[in-house]
């Protein structure tokens, strides 16, 4: 009895969707919306249409049908055809098929469809909402298929890419062999589609949706041509914004790869090794290893380190912004950092570092990298006025020419002081002060704007007009 009432309720709902909300109701949409089996949804639509037609009068609903069957191609070959057709053309299409294997209502809507975009959009939206379980009500099931977890997906991602590419090649070969002489471009693609079809047409649709979505879990197929690294990124991250950032990062990365050639290959290889065998972590470049040994006491495994690095990268870039006096192009910095990311990925699960340590590493890696690329490290010569306290306790202002480079450590090592004014002998204390003042001076240029505001003797706060005038 409950079943009957459910059905009645469903019919009412369908009527409401179509007539009141003016919606396009496809069987898939109905199934996902009401969490019912696809066949139940199809039947419900059939009953609905049947009722409406029996009412007599102008029922003002339009129905599209899904028809599948064996038909003949232009060249007379037997082929399996699937089509979504309006009611008016149903008979024509049916007649054109030798055997009709399937015929059911695809959608019901009030409006007359000019094209099939609304149907696609209806399904697209609902599939997007149920991206990870959109085929749970499908009657086509494959017991061997199971949803991969994020890690295993990333593990096998590379293999998938290879497989898909291989199968694609095979597919081409196959279609060339079998359809020699009559291989229209359409038939080729169809052959390909058949090749992939064992998973079911719904799956293929699902894949295309997830591709558009940019964040699906089962994105093994649509990303055939992206490299393994970016693929792994895509599978790991789901947030749209982060995905965007990564995409942006990809292209300079590739450029760098070209530049770096061998080294980048090495890095890729190391990241691949990591993907295939998580425990096999020992193969890193020796420099990094040393660093890790030094920091080992503070380190702990962290799986989400990539995310951490991202934020740290921004931090560190901010820090470098503070040293805005340097002519370093920000783009280059970013590129270098991304390079660092790749490098880091190889040891992804191994270590966790404090932020300072990470920053140091960023600097480190960018240094080593620039050495690899053979680029000149950028340093600027600046005249900085500094105040010292001399031995007698007087303040002395001096102008010094200072070489500034991009990293803190580097700075302290390479700051080249050419004192213009002669100065009494500096005590070791004075030297210490000098060092601290140096770092202050470095931080100065960017902070200028802020300092300007802060140094204004009128420490005041801008008030809003809203606190004086009230809304009418």
């Amino acid at each position, binding site marked *: 009895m409950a079943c009957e009432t459910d059905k009645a309720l469903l019919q009412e709902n369908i009527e409401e969707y179509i007539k009141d909300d003016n919606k396009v109701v496809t069987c898939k949409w109905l199934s996902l919306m009401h969490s019912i089996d696809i066949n139940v949804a199809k039947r419900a639509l059939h009953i609905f249409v049947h009722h409406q037609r029996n009412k007599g009068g102008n029922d003002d609903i339009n129905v599209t049908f899904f028809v599948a069957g064996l038909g003949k191609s232009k060249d007379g070959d037997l082929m399996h055809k699937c089509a979504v057709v309006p009611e008016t053309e149903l008979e024509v299409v049916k007649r054109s098929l030798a055997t009709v294997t399937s015929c059911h209502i695809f959608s019901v809507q009030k409006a007359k469809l000019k094209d099939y975009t609304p149907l696609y959009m209806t399904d697209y939206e609902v599939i997007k909402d149920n991206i990870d379980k959109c085929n749970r009500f499908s009657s086509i099931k494959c017991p061997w298929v199971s949803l991969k977890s994020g890690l295993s997906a990333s593990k096998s991602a590379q293999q998938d890419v290879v497989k898909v590419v291989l199968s694609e090649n095979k597919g081409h070969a196959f279609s060339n062999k079998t359809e020699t002489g009559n291989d229209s471009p359409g038939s080729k693609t169809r052959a390909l589609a058949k090749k992939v079809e064992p998973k079911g047409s719904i799956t293929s649709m699902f894949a295309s949706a997830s591709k558009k979505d940019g964040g699906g879990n089962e994105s093994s197929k649509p990303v055939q041509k992206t490299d393994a690294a970016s693929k792994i990124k895509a599978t790991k991250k789901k947030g749209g914004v982060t995905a965007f950032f990564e995409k942006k990062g990809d292209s300079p990365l590739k450029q760098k790869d070209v530049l770096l050639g061998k080294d980048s290959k090495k890095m890729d290889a190391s990241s691949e090794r990591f993907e295939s065998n998580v425990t096999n972590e020992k193969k890193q470049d020796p420099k990094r290893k040393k660093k890790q040994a030094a920091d080992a006491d503070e380190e702990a495994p962290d799986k989400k380190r990539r995310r951490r690095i991202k934020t740290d990268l921004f931090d560190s870039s901010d820090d470098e912004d503070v040293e805005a006096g340097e002519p370093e192009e920000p783009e280059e910095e970013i590129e270098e950092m991304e390079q660092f990311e790749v490098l880091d990925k190889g040891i992804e699960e191994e270590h966790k570092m404090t932020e300072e340590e990470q920053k140091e590493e960023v600097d480190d890696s960018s240094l080593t990298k620039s050495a690899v690329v053979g680029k000149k490290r950028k340093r600027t010569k600046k005249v900085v006025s500094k105040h010292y306290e001399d031995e007698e306790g007087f303040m002395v202002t001096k102008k010094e020419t200072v070489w500034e480079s991009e990293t803190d450590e580097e700075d302290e090592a390479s700051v080249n002081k050419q004192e213009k004014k002669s100065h009494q002998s500096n005590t070791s204390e004075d030297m210490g002060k000098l060092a601290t003042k140096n770092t202050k001076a470095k931080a100065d240029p960017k902070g200028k704007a802020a300092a300007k505001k802060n140094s*204004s003797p*009128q*420490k005041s706060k801008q*008030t809003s*007009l*809203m606190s*004086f005038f*009230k809304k009418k």
Partner: protein
Amino acid sequence: MFEARLVQGSLWKKLLDSIKDLLNEAIFDCSSTGITLQAMDSSHVSLVSISMNSDGFDTYRCDRNLSMGIHLPSLSKIMKCAGNDDIITMKATDDADTVSLVFESPNNEKVSDYEMKLIDLDTEHLGIPETEYSCVVKMPSAEFQRICRDLSQLGDSVVIACTKEGVKFSASGELGTGNIKLCQSASTDKEEESVVVDMNEAVCLTFALRYLNFFAKATPLSTQVQLSMSKDVPLVVEYKISELGFLRFYLAPKIEDNDGDN
């Protein structure tokens, strides 16, 4: 039907030039008495209020009250197409989604017609209470512009101190400090060059020079500017638009930080 014809079309040009940097979009409220505009800048620190009386126009007709949401940079662009001597007529139908602007050259040799889309804006009007200000300073607008420009080299805010003797603008920053004192000069022959301070109570207020510089863009509209100040209320910078009306800017003062050291 709304139609407003202004022989001195350059006023429209000047008016828009003076507000387009402060506001991106605004509603022109047209009624039978004239055109008004009230809008705040995006940071809600300053407010622009324009009033143009219907009497100031050569012909003015407004059958029904009309609110025209206008993207000001666009209108300013169109206004730039008008010559300085052109007669500008603004037209709109009662339920139109466009406003049309007709520019006629003085000898009627050239007539340009522009139509601009209106935008849907939902802004609230603020109630500005009638205030008796402690200090009202009238001074040459060019002088005000110069002072704001000069002091903005020194700092980002100006302290306006108004006493019986005159008005003092001060700014300070990393560079140093600057003070500009203007004394009352009512004895000057030309009214527009005089500095007049009408004061009940001395005031000393701090304002952001950034906004004052925006306000000073209205200098071409009028030779005189009037600054009205009271303690802890917004400054009013008013430019008269000949017989047409006025353009007022309201600017919230900067209030001393409690944890500040002065």
